[in-house]
C-alpha cells in the first residue's frame, strides 16, 4: 500500500498532469467513437437501403398515369407481390418521409425497411397510414408500387421499371465511405500519438521517483506492473465519458449527415442515434492507449536508440522513398494504403529531427551583432523543444496534413461535381418518356416547333464490348450505352479529358466517346477502334474523346442516336429541352398530346442542380468537421504539452528576467518561440498535405472507382492553416506567460 502511495505521489503533487492525460484519453475516445459511429451508421444505412429496395423495380402504368391505390389492389388481387411506398416531401428540416406497409412488405421474404426489429422507428419511415395523413395535409407526395423481380407476368396495362428515386450516385457514396475509413485510421493514428506524448512526458518527470524506488529495493518489473495497472484503471475510467461524448458528437453531426445521405444517395439513417454505446470502439481505444503507452517495454532499447541515431535517420529516408515509390507504383488499393502508412511513419520519424536540425543550423548562422545572442538562444531553445515535443509536433503535422488534403479533395470534388452536374443538366427541363410511349413521335413534334431552344433525345441501354487485349485476357463486359439524338449544342461544353479535333461533329458522324472509367479499365485511347455489340448488331467506331464521369462504374459509351441499330431496345428514354420562345407548359401539352397521356413528368433542372449542390456540401460537412476536430485536438494537445514542458524550462525565462531583460521583452521571446514552433510544423505539414491530396485524387480514386479528380492546389487553405498555427502559438505563449507570472508571484530566486 505504501508502495502504491509512493507511486502515485507524483500525481498528487502534479494533478494537472494527471488531468491532462485523462483529458487526452477522453477526447481521443470521443473523436474515435464519433468517427466510428458515423462511419458505421453510413455503412449500415447503405446496406439497409439496399436491402429495403433490393427488389430494384416498381410497377408503372403503361398509359403513363401515376399509380393509385386501386392499382395496388388490382395487382394484389392478381396474386402479385407488390408493396406501397408513399413518399411525402416536406420542407426542411422535416424532410422526406416514406410511408410503407410492413404487412405488404412481408411478401418480399425479407424484413421491412427500418431494420430487422419488426417495427418502424419514426422518420424517415412511417406506417403508411401516417404518411397518408401527411399527404392529405397538402404536402407533395407520390406513390410507388415496389415489386419483386420474381414477378414475370403483369396484368395488361402495367410494366416494370427500375426503382430509382434520384440520380445513381452509388460510387460517390462508396468514395465517401472510403474517405471516412481513411480518415478514421488517421484519427486513430493521431490520437494514439497524442496520448503517448502526454503519457511519456509524465513518465519522464516521474523517472527520478522510479529511480528512487529502485534504489529502495523495488524491482523494475514491479514498477512497470504498477504503471500498467495505473494506465488500465485510468483508461477504463476515461473511456466511458469519452464513449458517451463520442455518441453525442455523432448525434450532432449525424443530423446534417443523415440529410445528405437521404437526399443525395437515397440512403436514410434508419437508426438515428446509436442504440447502445459502441463497445468495440472502446475496446480499440483501450488497446490503443495500452499499446502506445507501453510499447517502450516491448521494443528493445537498442531499437529505440537506433531510431534517433544517424543510421536510424538514414533508414527513415530510405523508408520514406520506399513508401513514396510504393504509393506511385502499387497496382492496387491495399498497396497504396500500405505505402501511405509507410510514408507517414517515415515523415513522423524524420520531421522532429529535421526541424531541430534546422533550428540548430539557423542558430549557428545567427549574426551575433545586434540582438544576435538572444536570437541564437531562442533558436536553440526551439531546437530543444522540437526534440522534447516530437510526438505532439508529429501529431499536429499529421492533423494539419489531413485537414489540407481533405479540404483540397472536398473543394476539388465540389467544383468538379458542380461542373459535371451543370453539364449533365445543361437543358432547362427534363421530360421523362412514359412507359410504352413512342419517343420518335415526340422528337418529330419537337423538331417541328418553331422557336424552340436546343433539345435532344436521350436513349439509354446496354452494349457489350469485347477486347481480348495483348495478353489474351478476355475483357468482355456489359457497359452502359448513352445515345444523343441529335448531338445538340447542350453537350458541346462537356469536360473532355482528352479529345481529337471537332469531337462532337465526329460523334454525329458515327464516332464514339467513352467515359474515363471505361478508358482506364480497358486501356482505351483516342483513335482506337472500339468494337462493341448493341442488341444483335456488331458495331465498331473510332474513339474521339474521353469524358469525365462520376457514375456508371461499368463504363459508358456515348454514341449518336442515328447510329443505333433498328433492333436496339431502350432501357430508358427522356428529352432534355430548352423551351426557347415556348412556355414549358405548352411543350408539355404538345408531348402529352403526342403520347396521348393526361400529363407528363417534367423536371426543372435548375432546382435539381441547386438541391444537389446544397446536399453535396452537407455531405462533406462531416468530413470537414471530423478533420477540423482532429486538428483542434492536436492543437489542444500541443498546448497542454507545451505548457507542461514549459514548466521544466520556465526557470530559464525567469533567468532572463534576473539578467535584466524586461518582462515585455521576455514575453516577446515567448511569443516568437511558440509561434515559430507552430508555424514550422505547418510548413512541414503542407508538403505532406499536398502529397496526400495527390494520393487521394490520383491514386486512390482511380484504383477504387476508375475515375480521377484534377489535382488542384488551394494556397488559401495554407494561409488559413498558418493563421490557425499563429493563433495556437499565441495561446501557447499566453499560457507560458501565465505560468511565468504565477511563478514570479513567489519571487524566489533561491536555487
Amino acid at each position: 500500500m505504501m508502495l502504491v502511495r509512493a507511486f502515485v505521489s507524483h500525481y498528487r503533487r502534479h494533478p494537472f498532469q494527471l488531468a491532462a492525460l485523462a483529458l487526452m484519453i477522453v477526447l481521443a475516445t470521443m473523436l474515435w467513437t464519433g468517427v466510428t459511429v458515423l462511419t458505421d451508421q453510413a455503412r449500415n444505412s447503405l446496406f439497409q437501403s439496399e436491402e429495403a429496395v433490393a427488389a430494384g423495380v416498381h410497377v408503372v402504368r403503361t398509359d403513363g398515369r401515376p399509380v393509385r391505390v386501386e392499382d395496388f389492389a388490382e395487382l394484389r388481387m392478381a396474386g402479385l407481390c407488390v408493396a406501397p411506398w408513399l413518399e411525402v416531401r416536406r420542407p426542411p428540416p422535416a424532410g422526406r418521409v416514406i410511408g410503407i406497409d410492413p404487412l405488404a412488405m412481408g411478401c418480399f421474404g425479407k424484413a421491412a425497411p427500418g431494420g430487422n426489429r419488426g417495427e418502424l422507428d419514426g422518420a424517415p419511415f412511417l406506417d403508411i397510414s401516417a404518411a397518408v395523413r401527411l399527404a392529405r395535409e397538402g404536402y407533395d407526395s407520390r406513390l410507388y408500387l415496389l415489386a419483386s423481380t420474381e414477378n414475370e407476368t403483369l396484368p395488361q396495362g402495367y410494366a416494370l421499371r427500375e426503382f430509382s428515386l434520384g440520380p445513381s450516385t452509388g460510387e460517390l457514396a462508396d468514395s465517401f465511405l472510403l474517405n471516412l475509413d481513411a480518415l478514421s485510421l488517421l484519427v486513430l493514428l493521431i490520437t494514439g500519438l497524442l496520448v503517448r506524448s502526454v503519457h511519456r512526458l509524465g513518465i519522464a518527470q516521474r523517472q527520478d521517483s522510479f529511480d528512487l524506488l529502485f534504489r529502495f529495493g523495488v524491482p523494475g518489473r514491479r514498477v512497470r506492473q504498477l504503471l500498467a495497472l495505473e494506465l488500465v484503471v485510468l483508461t477504463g475510467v476515461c473511456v466511458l465519458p469519452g464513449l458517451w461524448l463520442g455518441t453525442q458528437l455523432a448525434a450532432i453531426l449525424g443530423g446534417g449527415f443523415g440529410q445528405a445521405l437521404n437526399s443525395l444517395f437515397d440512403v436514410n439513417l434508419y437508426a438515428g442515434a446509436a442504440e447502445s454505446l459502441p463497445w468495440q470502439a472502446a475496446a480499440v481505444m483501450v488497446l490503443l492507449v495500452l499499446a502506445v503507452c507501453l510499447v517502450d517495454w516491448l521494443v528493445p532499447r537498442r531499437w529505440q536508440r537506433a531510431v534517433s541515431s544517424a543510421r536510424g535517420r538514414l533508414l527513415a529516408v530510405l523508408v520514406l522513398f520506399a513508401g513514396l515509390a510504393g504509393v506511385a507504383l502499387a497496382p492496387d488499393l491495399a498497396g497504396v494504403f500500405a505505402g501511405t502508412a509507410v510514408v507517414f511513419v517515415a515523415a513522423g520519424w524524420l520531421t522532429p529531427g529535421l526541424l531541430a536540425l534546422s533550428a540548430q543550423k539557423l542558430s549557428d548562422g545567427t549574426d551575433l551583432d545586434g540582438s544576435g545572442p538572444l536570437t541564437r538562444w531562442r533558436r536553440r531553445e526551439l531546437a530543444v523543444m522540437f526534440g522534447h515535443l516530437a510526438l505532439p509536433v508529429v501529431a499536429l503535422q499529421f492533423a494539419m496534413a489531413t485537414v489540407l488534403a481533405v479540404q483540397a479533395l472536398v473543394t476539388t470534388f465540389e467544383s468538379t461535381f458542380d461542373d459535371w452536374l451543370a453539364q449533365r443538366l445543361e437543358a432547362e427541363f427534363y421530360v421523362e418518356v412514359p412507359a410504352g410511349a413512342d419517343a420518335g413521335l415526340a422528337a418529330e413534334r419537337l423538331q417541328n416547333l418553331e422557336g424552340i431552344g436546343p433539345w435532344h433525345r436521350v436513349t439509354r441501354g446496354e452494349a457489350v464490348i469485347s477486347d481480348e487485349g495483348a495478353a489474351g485476357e478476355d475483357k468482355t463486359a456489359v457497359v452502359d450505352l448513352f445515345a444523343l439524338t441529335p448531338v445538340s449544342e447542350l453537350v458541346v461544353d462537356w469536360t473532355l479529358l482528352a479529345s481529337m479535333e471537332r469531337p462532337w461533329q465526329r460523334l454525329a458522324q458515327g464516332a464514339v466517346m467513352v467515359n474515363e472509367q471505361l478508358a482506364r479499365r480497358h486501356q482505351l485511347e483516342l483513335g482506337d477502334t472500339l468494337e462493341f455489340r448493341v442488341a444483335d448488331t456488331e458495331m465498331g467506331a473510332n474513339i474521339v474523346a474521353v469524358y469525365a464521369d462520376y457514375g456508371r462504374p461499368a463504363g459508358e459509351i456515348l454514341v449518336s442516336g442515328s447510329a443505333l441499330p433498328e433492333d436496339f431496345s431502350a432501357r430508358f428514354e427522356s428529352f432534355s429541352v430548352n423551351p426557347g420562345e415556348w412556355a414549358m407548359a405548352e411543350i408539355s401539352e404538345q408531348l402529352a398530346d403526342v403520347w396521348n397521356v393526361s400529363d407528363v413528368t417534367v423536371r426543372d433542372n435548375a432546382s435539381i442542380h441547386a438541391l444537389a449542390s446544397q446536399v453535396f456540401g452537407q455531405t462533406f460537412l462531416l468530413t470537414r468537421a471530423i478533420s477540423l476536430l482532429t486538428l483542434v485536438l492536436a492543437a489542444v494537445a500541443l498546448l497542454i504539452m507545451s505548457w507542461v514542458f514549459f514548466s521544466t524550462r520556465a526557470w530559464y525565462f525567469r533567468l532572463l528576467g534576473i539578467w535584466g531583460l524586461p518582462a515585455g521583452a521576455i514575453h516577446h521571446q515567448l511569443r516568437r518561440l511558440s509561434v515559430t514552433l507552430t508555424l514550422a510544423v505547418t510548413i512541414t505539414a503542407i508538403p505532406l498535405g499536398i502529397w496526400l491530396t495527390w494520393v487521394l485524387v490520383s491514386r486512390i480514386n482511380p484504383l477504387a472507382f476508375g475515375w480521377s479528380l484534377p489535382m488542384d492546389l488551394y494556397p488559401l487553405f495554407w494561409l488559413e492553416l498558418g493563421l490557425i498555427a499563429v493563433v495556437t502559438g499565441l495561446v501557447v505563449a499566453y499560457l507560458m506567460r501565465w505560468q511565468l507570472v504565477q511563478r514570479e508571484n513567489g519571487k524566489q530566486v533561491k536555487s
Partner: protein
Amino acid sequence: MADPVLVVERLSKRFSSGGQPVTVLTDLSFNLAKGESLAVVGRSGSGKSTLLNLLCGLQVPDKGNITVTGESFSESVNSDSDARWTELRRRSIGVVFQQANLMPALSLEDNVRLRSHLAGHAAGHERGWLERLGIGAEADRYPDQVSGGQAQRAALAMVFAMAPAVILADEPTGSLDRNTADEVADCLFAMQRDSGCALVLATHDRELASRCDHLLDLSALHLGGTD
C-alpha cells in the same frame, strides 16, 4: 569608507506562513563600498536569499530603502521602479546562484556572450573571460557536458563579463566538493578584487565567509568586520 555602491537603510521584510506573519528582516542597515565584500550567514530560513532578492529588486521590502550605484528604491512599487531595477540587473548587478546559472541550450561561450550582450557589451571577449577562469578549452561545450565546478566558473565568467558594480552570490559553492569549491571561491575573490566591484555573498560556509571583508549574521543580526 569610499562612496558606497550599495546602501541599505532600515530594511524590513515579513512573510505570511500558515496564516501567521513571520518576520525575516527587521531594520537592517549596512553600506558596501566599491571593492568591498560582505558575507551573509545564518541558519536556513534566516533570510539570506530574501536579502539577496531584495538587493536586486526581485522582491520588495515592507519598509526601508535600498540604494545601488546612486539609484534609490523604497518600499513603494511602480512601473518606474520596476524599470530601474530591471536596468540595474541588466548592467550593474551580477547574480550567481548555487546552480542553474546557465542556459542549457547554449554553449558556455554563448552563455557568456548572451549575458554580456544583455549588459550592453559588444561581442568578442567571451572566450577570454572563460580562459581567465581556466575553462577556455570548454568554451564550445554545453552545460550538461561539463562538471559542476566548470559550470560555476562559467557562471562567474558571465557575471564578470558584464562588468557589474555589485555581485550577489547565493551559495555559489554550495553544490561543489571542498577542493572545487575552494577553486571557484579563489576565482571569485580574485576577479572581484581585479574588477573592483562590491560582493554580497550568502553562504553557510564559515570558512568562505571569513574571506570577505564584512560579515552579516542574520541569525544574530550582527554586522561587523571579520577580524
